């Protein structure tokens, strides 16, 4: 998640926070088309159109090859690196029928049960 760390306007003075993309100027520009596509998923007809022809729908919104591949692979970490924003990507997760524990597990390399256990363990912090 080094995108932007060296890019103008990205808060260069701050140290990186582990595993935490900062959705600022660099990622917001890089991910604009991707997020615009995900924003369109607010509409049920658009969700249906995407499901019918994923690659075609990505092309319609002008996604890069890398973004299109990351969509096809359901690779959340790569989608984030490509400028995806958590709130917009969550609408894609909705299409996939995944909840936030599923998404959390995918990103942390845990099983869903392990991820839920991690959340519960925070009670003892």
């Amino acid at each position, binding site marked *: 998640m080094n995108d932007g760390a060296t890019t103008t306007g990205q808060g260069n003075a701050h140290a990186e926070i*582990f595993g935490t993309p900062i959705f600022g100027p660099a990622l917001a520009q890089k991910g604009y088309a991707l997020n615009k596509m995900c924003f369109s998923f607010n*509409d049920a007809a658009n969700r249906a159109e995407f499901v019918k022809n994923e690659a075609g729908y990505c092309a319609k919104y002008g996604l890069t090859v890398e973004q299109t591949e990351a969509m096809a692979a359901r690779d959340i970490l790569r989608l984030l690196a490509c400028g995806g924003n958590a709130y917009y990507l969550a609408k894609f997760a909705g299409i996939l029928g995944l909840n936030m524990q599923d998404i*959390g597990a995918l990103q942390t390399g845990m099983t869903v049960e392990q991820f839920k256990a991690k959340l519960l363990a925070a009670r003892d912090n």
Partner: protein
Amino acid sequence: MARIVGGLATSHVPSIGGAMAKGLQKDPYWAPFFDGFAATHRWLDDVKPDAAVVIYNDHGLNFFLDKMPTFAVGAAPQYCNSDEGWGIPVLAPFRGDTKLSWHIIETLVGAEFDPVTCQEMLVDHAFSIPMELFFRDKAHSLPAVPVVVNTVQHPLPSLARCFKLGQAIGRAIESYPEDIKVVVIGTGGLSHQLEGERAGFINTKFDKVCMDAMSGDISQLTRINQHDLVELSGSQGVEVMNWVAMRGALTGEVRELHRNYHLPISNTASGIMLLENRPRLAQAA
């Protein structure tokens, strides 16, 4: 003149809407959260506010990155909820109060805040769910003014700035010429992070700092910069900005009447708070 009777805060996780639609309020997973509203219901039944100002963040329903306001104020007679794409039920429309909205807007601009004004605005789960959680059968008839804070795209307004926004909203309400009782609500938080390898991050110690600061020393929060806030609260935990703005609007003597803290609700540490606001003049009288 209008009177600010108190402040309320609650988390606004989308799946709360799903749980409400399925009637899961007494389910063992959900009860520790929903039971936290009983005290706020008793207080609201007693105080009977006439209007609510609701400070929240939009998650890509009304605002997209093409036009992303730092602050926006609704000025519509009615606010509709709509499909947010993640399968939670769409709620009935909410009632606005254009007169109060424009009074707040005029006061804010007079105080050198320059919000986007919205005569049409969709309200997402961060507005609609707290309205239903707190006001139940009155949620769709109680006049409300939505205030949106950008928590999506950095640079985010600082906590200090959010607090000052709240103070200006408080002064606006207090100078409103109608004899009404207003409650101010901040939604979102507490600590959580949805994305990245740090997904699932929760910080109970910092959440306690946030809740304690609501009736204690608010500078514990307003001195934190936005980068440190992300580190302490998680990427989406920054929504506590809405709580800080709500707290800013309580211009009188503030007393904590109730708090509820439970985790996890989805990936979030949930917080509910009820703050009483006693106008200083009324207290002296």
